[in-house]
Every structure is written in C-alpha cells, then in structure tokens.
C-alpha cells in the first residue's frame, strides 16, 4: 500500500527531531559531568543521537522533495514546525534528571526500533537497524545508571525520585497516536505507538523497581510536541543557540 508522503514526512520529522533535540540537550554537558568517564559517555551518546538525526532528517528532506537538506530542516525551521516529544526538550537539571530522561527515552526507542527494523519502508528499516545497535547500548547504560543512583545513597535516591516525578508526566506523549500513526501502521511503516506501551511499562517497571523508585500513580501526560500544537518554553531557547549561526549568516558553507 502506498504511503501518503505528507504523513511519512511527519513521521520522519518526529524521529529526527527527537534525536536532534535530545542530542543537543545531552551535548550541553560537555566538560561539566560528575566524572571523566561520564564526559566521554555523554559526548558519545550525543554523537550517536546527532548521527541518527542525520539519517532521519536526511530521509525526511528527501521525502519532502523540495531540494532541502537535513541541515535545512534542523537549522531553519521554527519551534512550531518541530515534532519532537516534549520529554526531550526538558532541561537537563542535575545529572540524575538527565540520565532519567535518557532512560525514559532510550527504553521507548529500544521497543520502537525492534519494530521499525521490520518496516515496509526499506530506508526506515535500514536506519532503525543501524540505530538499534547504539540504542541497545544507550538503554543498558542509562538503565544501569538509574539503578545505581536510585539504589545508591539516600540523597541519590531522593534526587532520582524527584526527577522521576518531574519527568513522568512527559513519558506518556510517546504513546499518543493520531492520523499520522494510523497511516504509518496501515502501510506497515511503523507500529501504532499506543500498542508499545505494555512492553515499555514492563521494561521500565523492572528497571525502576530495581532502582527502588516509585512510579507515580498519575497517568496524566503533557502533550503537544509530536504534533507541534504546543511545545514547552524551553524549545525556543534551545533553537536560539542551535540555529544562531545559520540564521545570522544565511547561505554560507560551513
């Protein structure tokens, strides 16, 4: 079954904007993390996310068919055209909040990529296959850190619990579905995210349990990122630094 190009574009922007915005956030740690090994690991995570962005937005630009590049999409769209979930634009906070955000996202990606590797769209399947190796490593690392800090000292436990309470209302948006998701599911490009929730809950339940953290009861979730209806105030600031050179000196080669 043929895919509606506009819907496919939306889907690809969601993938690429998630990795772009989170890669940016993680890269903000450079040189400031608690220990040298973490400086290396965070730079490496950011690098993988930017690499995945190049693939997702590269394909998005191709599908869009207006002669644009991945860079045009990253650096020359305004906030309302971004399609990332709100979770990834949330500020870094302390190291624990950063790693918890990473874990909530990595866990979702690890469940999703397994499905995308079987996508009817060959390019989606190829990107997912490449990204899934990195994601498997990311989720293992972020899960280990969440467990280590959750089940560490009293202070580290309390900070992780506070981070979980802060970020939990942003986890649910990853499982929202709309027309785009229905179109992707019908064409066999991607699963309906709502159907991934059970597997996700099992995965994070196990890790957060080991971390001695309590998942809040509330299932209320903020949304508006993945359809662009309403981002947080944070995204504009992030884009202000990210896009500054391209905006200030348009049309240059870098």
């Amino acid at each position, binding site marked *: 079954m043929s895919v509606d190009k506009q819907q496919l574009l939306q889907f690809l922007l969601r993938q690429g904007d998630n990795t772009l915005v989170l890669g940016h956030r993680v890269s903000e740690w450079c040189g400031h993390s608690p220990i040298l*090994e973490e*400086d290396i690991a965070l730079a490496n995570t950011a690098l993988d996310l930017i690499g995945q962005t190049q693939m997702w937005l590269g394909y998005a630009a191709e599908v869009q068919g207006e002669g644009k590049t991945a860079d045009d999409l990253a650096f020359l769209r305004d906030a309302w055209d971004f399609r990332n979930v709100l979770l990834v634009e949330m500020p870094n906070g302390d190291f624990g909040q950063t790693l918890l955000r990473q874990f909530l996202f990595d866990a979702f990606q690890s469940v999703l990529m397994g499905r995308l590797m079987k996508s009817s769209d060959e390019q989606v399947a190829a990107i997912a296959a490449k990204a899934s190796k990195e994601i498997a490593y990311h989720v293992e690392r972020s899960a280990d850190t969440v467990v280590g*800090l959750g089940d*560490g000292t009293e202070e580290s436990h309390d900070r992780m619990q506070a981070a979980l309470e802060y970020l939990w209302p942003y986890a649910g948006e990853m499982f929202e579905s709309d027309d785009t998701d229905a179109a992707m599911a019908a064409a066999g490009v991607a699963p309906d995210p709502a159907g991934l929730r059970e597997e996700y809950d099992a995965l994070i339940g196990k890790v957060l349990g080991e971390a001695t953290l309590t998942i809040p009861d509330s299932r209320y979730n903020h949304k508006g990122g993945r359809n662009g209806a309403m981002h947080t105030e944070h995204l504009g600031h992030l884009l202000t630094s990210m896009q500054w050179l391209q905006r200030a000196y348009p049309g240059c080669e870098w």
Partner: protein
Amino acid sequence: MYAQMIKTASAGVKSREEMTDQEREFQDKIDNDIKIEPRDWMPDDYRRTLIRQIGQHAHSEVVGQLPEGNWITRAPTLERKAILLAKVQDEAGHGLYLYSAAETLGESRDELVRLLHEGRMKYSSIFNYPTLNWADIGAVGWLVDGAAIVNQVALQRTSYGPYSRAMIRICKEESFHARQGYHAIMKMAFGTPEQTRQAQSAVDRLWFPAIMMFGPTDADSTNSDQSMAWKIKVKSNDELRQQFVDQTVPQIEYLGLDLPDPNIKWNEERGHYDFSDPDWSEFFNVIKGNGPCNVDRMKDRVAAWDDGEWVRDGLLAHAQKKAAAKVAAE
C-alpha cells in the same frame, strides 16, 4: 605543548661519578633508549617530575574540553556538530589515558584532580583563552592540536614506557583533529567576507597563545637539563616552537589570510622563518592565573566536580551494596 614550565625535581644533573650504582644503571638504560617501566627502579625525582608533567598534560586535555564545548551547541551544521563532539570526546579520552599513565607512577587521579582544583597544579596556558567565533573552533584544531602534536611526536620517544605509549596512541587522534580543524578554517577563510573576517580574527588572536604553548625561551627555561638527560623532555622549547612556526606559516598563506605577526619572514640563511617573540609578560600572567578565562575555567571544573559528588557517592554506594550481596550469597 600541554605541559609547560614543569619544574624538574632535581638538584642538578649528576655526573656518572656522582651517581650510585642504581642511578648509573638507570641512566644507562635511558641512554640506550630502553624504556623505563612501572616496576623498574627509578629515582624519586624522576618519578615526581613525570607525575607533574603527565598530570599537567592530563589536566590540559580535560580543561581543554571547555573552550571547544563552548561551541558544540552552536555548531553550524549537523556534520560540524558531530565532528566537534567526536573531537571533544577524544580529548576526554586522552585525559583518561594520561591519568592512567600517572597512576602507574603511584599517583591517583583523584589526588591529581584535587591538586588542580586547589590551584597547586596547572594546565596548558592556551585553554585560558576564549573561543569567540566559529572560526576559532577550526583554529583550535589546527593550531592548538597542531602545536600539541609537534611536542607529542617528540615525546613518543620519551623514556617512560606508559607515557611514550600514551603519546603514540594520542598523536594519531591529534593529527586527525588538526586536519579536521584546518578543513573547518579553510571553509571560513574561503567563504563569505564575514566568514573570512572570522577566520582572520581567529588567527590574529590565537597565534601568539599557540606559540606560547611551547613554554618560555630556552634561555629562561630552568631545569631543562635534567629533564633532557632523563629523556622526559626530548627537544627544547625553542626547537619545537621553530618547527611549529615553519610548518604553520605556509598554511596561513595558503588560507590567504594576513600573517598575524609582521616580522614573520623566511630566513634563507637559517633555513627557517623568523618571527616575533610572544609577549612573555602576558604568558607569565596567564600562568599565574590572570589569563582571560582562568577563573571561569576553574570555576566550571570545580563546580562539575562538587555538583557531581552525590553521583559518585551514589554509584559507589550501589556498587558496595551489590558486592556485599554477592558475598552474602556465596
């Protein structure tokens, strides 16, 4: 270079007659280019000097993340962002190998970091200069890593085995950084007039700080003789500086930029470029803590360490719980 003004712990070079048998045997190994390994006997002063030098080099790699990290979130393309992230990640990795090399001499990383944070150890003066425009990132890779390579290629022959091996490994990556940096500044130099202006500004600001990296002139460089005899230092500051200037001037010319020093001129007789001395009073000021970024760099590093204490404590506590549980299960 990343190790400057390392005070050699020594009362002066001993003659063969003044040496003990052990010292003579040690010196013979060095003279015959046999590497000294961690378990080998070595004079205390050799050990102390090496710890200072390797420690300062490690600190430089770590603090060096900051001026480049300053542009990661503003890199102009995804590819440039990826290249810069990979480079900064490499630099942190260099810090790690070097701290490990220092550990083989019996000095822990935590202790070296404590000395740095207390202001009792230093890092290269170059990282106390700011990165102010995107061309600076190209210039740092090209000039700063370029100068580091000149020094570190020489240090591959250094007498201490783990240090020498770390240098060999690190140099490969530094060469890659220098090439990528030159490529980035080429884009700027050959770009729009505004980009060219940024490239010129970068070269003008970073030239003298880059040639200061090799340390004071040989005439003012105390304690060098013992370090040379121990092959902790392999070439003199002035030799290395000249080598850097000779390789870099044609590269500036190729970029079509103005030379940052009106006295740079090929000297047929010497077979080298002549150039002006940097302002050494500025250098000594930066070393003393009065560079444009000294205070902020240390503030950042100390804050990162202090803010991270709960993380290190938490992970350690968890590892101990796990180990205890494992013992209990056995």
